[in-house]
C-alpha cells in the first residue's frame, strides 16, 4: 500500500520536467559554473602563497646549490629578479612580502666565523608585511641556510655519518616532530571553490523539493483526489509518509550525483576536483537529516498555501533567503562578522557546516552531532505542524 503511494509519487515526478530540471540540472550547472568561477579566488594555488623576491649578485652562487636551497622555503613562493632595482621596485609596489639579496661575497660569508657585513645576505620586509609573516620568513630562511650548511659539512667530511639524510632531518628537528597536514583549508578555515560549491548547491537543490511536493499535494487537494483517498481503507498517515519517503530517496540520489559531479565532472572542465576524505559514512546521516528538514519545510508550505503559484513563490523566495544568509551563495568566510553570526540561523548553513566538518575537518560523529540535532529537531517540529494543518484542512473540505 505504502509502496504503491511511493511508486505513484515517483511516477508523477518522472513526468514533471520542470521539477527534474530544478532538482538535478540546476545544481549540476551551479556546481560546474561556480567551482570554475571561484577557483582563482578560493583556490590553494601557488599564486596565493606569500611572495619573496630574490636577487643574486654572483653566478658563482648557482654552482654552489645555495639558490636551490633558499628557493624552496615551505609555504612561500620565491620570485627571481635580474636586477636589485627591479626587485626593490616590486617590494615598494607591495607585490612582494620581502626581498632577499645575495651579495657576491655570500659564499665567503658561509665559511667565515665572523662574516663581513658587506658579504651577508640582506632581507628587506615590505612595510605592509605583518609581524607574524616577517618571523615566518626569517625562520624559513634560517632553516634553509642550516640545511645548506649541514649538506656542506657532510660533503666535506667535517661531519661523518653513515646515514647523512636521517642525521640532517634530526638536526633540523624534522624527525622529532610529527606533522599532520589537515590541508590548508583547515588551517585557514576556508573551503576551496569545489569544496564550497558541491555541498552548497546540493543543499540548495535539496530544499527545492518544495516545488514538486507542493505541486502534487495542491493538485491532489484541488482535484478532490486527496478527499477521494480519504475514502480508501488506508491509514491516513500513509499519505504524508508516501510523500516523505520518495523525496528522501530523491535527495539521496541528488547527493550521490552532485558528489560525482564534484569528483569527476569539475576536473573534466579544467577545474580542481573534489577530494573525498574523512569519515565518509557520516554523509549518510547528514544527508538524511538535511533531507528530512527540507521535506518537512516543503510539506508545511504545501499544506498552508492555496495554489501552486503561491507555493512556488513562497518556496522559491524562502529558499533564496535561506541560501543567501546561510553561506550557500556567498561563502560565510567572506561575509562580515555580524552576517557570519546570522548564517547560523539558516538550516542550509547547518547542513553546509556538517559537510565541511566531514570533508574538510576530518570530523567524527561528535563534531557533526550538533548539526544533525538542529536539522532533525527542525524536521520533527515542522512535520508535527504539517500533520496538524493537514488534518485541519481535511476537516474543512
Amino acid at each position: 500500500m505504502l509502496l504503491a503511494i511511493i511508486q505513484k509519487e515517483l511516477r508523477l515526478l518522472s513526468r514533471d520536467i520542470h521539477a527534474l530540471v530544478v532538482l538535478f540540472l540546476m545544481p549540476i550547472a551551479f556546481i560546474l559554473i561556480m567551482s570554475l568561477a571561484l577557483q582563482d579566488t578560493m583556490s590553494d594555488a601557488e599564486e596565493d602563497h606569500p611572495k619573496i623576491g630574490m636577487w643574486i649578485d654572483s653566478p658563482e652562487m648557482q654552482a654552489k646549490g645555495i639558490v636551490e636551497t633558499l628557493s624552496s622555503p615551505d609555504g612561500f613562493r620565491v620570485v627571481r629578479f635580474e636586477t636589485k632595482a627591479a626587485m626593490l621596485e616590486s617590494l615598494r609596489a607591495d607585490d612582494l612580502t620581502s626581498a632577499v639579496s645575495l651579495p657576491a661575497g655570500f659564499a665567503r660569508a658561509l665559511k667565515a666565523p665572523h662574516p663581513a657585513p658587506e658579504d651577508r645576505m640582506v632581507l628587506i620586509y615590505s612595510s605592509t608585511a605583518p609581524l607574524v609573516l616577517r618571523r615566518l620568513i626569517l625562520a624559513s630562511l634560517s632553516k634553509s641556510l642550516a640545511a645548506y650548511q649541514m649538506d656542506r659539512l657532510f660533503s666535506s667530511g667535517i661531519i661523518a655519518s653513515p646515514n647523512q639524510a636521517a642525521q640532517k632531518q634530526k638536526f633540523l628537528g624534522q624527525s622529532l616532530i610529527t606533522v599532520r597536514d589537515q590541508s590548508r583549508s583547515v588551517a585557514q578555515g576556508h573551503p576551496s571553490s569545489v569544496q564550497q560549491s558541491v555541498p552548497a548547491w546540493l543543499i540548495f537543490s535539496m530544499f527545492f523539493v518544495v516545488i514538486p511536493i507542493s505541486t502534487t499535494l495542491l493538485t491532489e487537494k484541488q482535484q478532490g483526489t486527496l478527499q477521494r483517498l480519504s475514502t480508501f481503507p488506508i491509514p491516513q498517515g500513509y499519505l504524508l509518509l508516501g510523500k516523505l519517503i520518495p523525496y528522501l530517496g530523491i535527495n539521496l540520489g541528488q547527493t550521490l550525483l552532485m558528489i560525482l559531479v564534484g569528483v569527476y565532472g569539475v576536473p573534466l572542465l579544467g577545474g580542481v576536483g573534489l577530494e573525498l576524505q574523512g569519515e565518509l559514512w557520516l554523509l549518510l546521516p547528514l544527508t538524511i537529516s538535511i533531507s528530512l528538514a527540507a521535506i518537512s519545510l516543503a510539506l508545511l508550505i504545501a499544506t498552508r498555501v492555496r495554489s501552486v503559484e503561491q507555493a512556488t513563490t513562497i518556496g522559491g523566495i524562502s529558499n533564496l533567503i535561506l541560501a543567501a544568509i546561510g553561506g550557500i551563495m556567498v561563502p560565510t568566510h567572506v561575509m562580515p562578522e555580524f552576517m557570519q553570526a546570522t548564517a547560523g540561523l539558516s538550516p542550509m548553513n547547518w547542513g553546509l557546516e556538517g559537510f565541511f566538518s566531514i570533508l574538510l575537518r576530518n570530523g567524527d560523529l561528535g563534531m557533526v552531532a550538533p548539526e544533525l540535532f538542529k536539522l532533525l529537531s527542525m524536521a520533527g517540529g515542522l512535520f508535527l505542524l504539517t500533520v496538524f494543518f493537514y488534518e485541519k484542512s481535511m476537516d474543512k473540505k
Partner: protein
Amino acid sequence: MISLKSIEFAYPQQANLFQGIDLEIISGSLFGLLGPNGAGKTTLIALMTGQLKPCAGEIHIQGLDYRHDRKRILSNLAVAPQDYAFYPQLTARENLDFFSNLYPQIGAQRKARIQEALELTGLQDQARKPARQFSGGLKRRLNLAISLLNRPAILFLDEPTVGIDPQSRHFILQAIRDLNRSGTTILYTSHYMEEVEQLCDRVAIIDHGRILAHDGINEILNKPARLQITFDTPTDSTSLPASLKALLQKTGFEYANGCLSGLPRDTHAIHELLKLLEAEKLKIQQITYGRQTLESLFFELTQTHLRD
C-alpha cells in the same frame, strides 16, 4: 442499509448545516439525492463515506459504525466524486493500478479487477493514454472506473454525468443501471431531474440542511395532480357568481388572485366546473392539470429563486 440518525454537522466558522437529519437508504436501492447548489448533498455524502465526522448523531453503514469499523466499512464502499479525482499525468491503467493497490482485499485479483473496471466503463482502448488527454466523457468514465475496483456493496455517485456528451451520459447511466441490477446499492446525486426520474427507485430532496421529501419515486410522482385555472380578468372572491361559490364549497376548491385551484375528485367534477365557467362567461387564460413531475415537486419544495 445506510442509516443516519439525528445527524448534526457544522463547518468551522459557519452556521450549523445539519441539525438533526434522519435518513435511511435500503440495501439494493438506487437512491437519488436532490437539492439545489449548497443544499448540503456533497457534505452528506462526505459524512456517509467517513470523510467528515458528524458533530452529533449516528451513522451506520450495513450495521457498522465508523468509530469502530472504519476500515471494514471503507473496504465495501466507493465514491465517484464530482471532481475528476485522479492523476491526469498517469495513464488510465496506471491510475487504476495505483487505486487498486489501496484495497488490501483485492490482492492477487488486481489485474483482473482493473480489466473488469476498464470493460465496464468502455475504456479498454484508452487504457494506455495519459488521463490529461481524455475528453470530459472519458474522464467521467475513468472517475467511475476507479470506484468499481473493489466491487463495492455501496456506491456513491456525486453528479456523475455533469458536463459530458449524450453518448457518454447514456453509457454511464446504463452502467449504473447494470450495477444496481447486480445488487450494488447506489446513492446518486444529480441536477438532471429526468435522469433521476428514469433511474432511481427512491428519492430525497434536501435544502438548507433539511430533508424536504423522502419517498419512493412512484409514490412521489403518482400523487394526485392539482387542477389550476387562471382567469383572464382577476376578480375579487366576493364578486364571484353565487353558482361558482356554491360549487367551490362543494368541491373544496380554492380561489385567490384570479386563480382557482384544487384536487378534482374525478373527471366528471372537472367537466362540471368547466361547464359552469362557460355558462357564467368567465374567460379562461390558462388551465394546468396532469401527472406531477419531479421538477415541479423540486421547485415547489425548494422555490425557484437563483442560488449560488
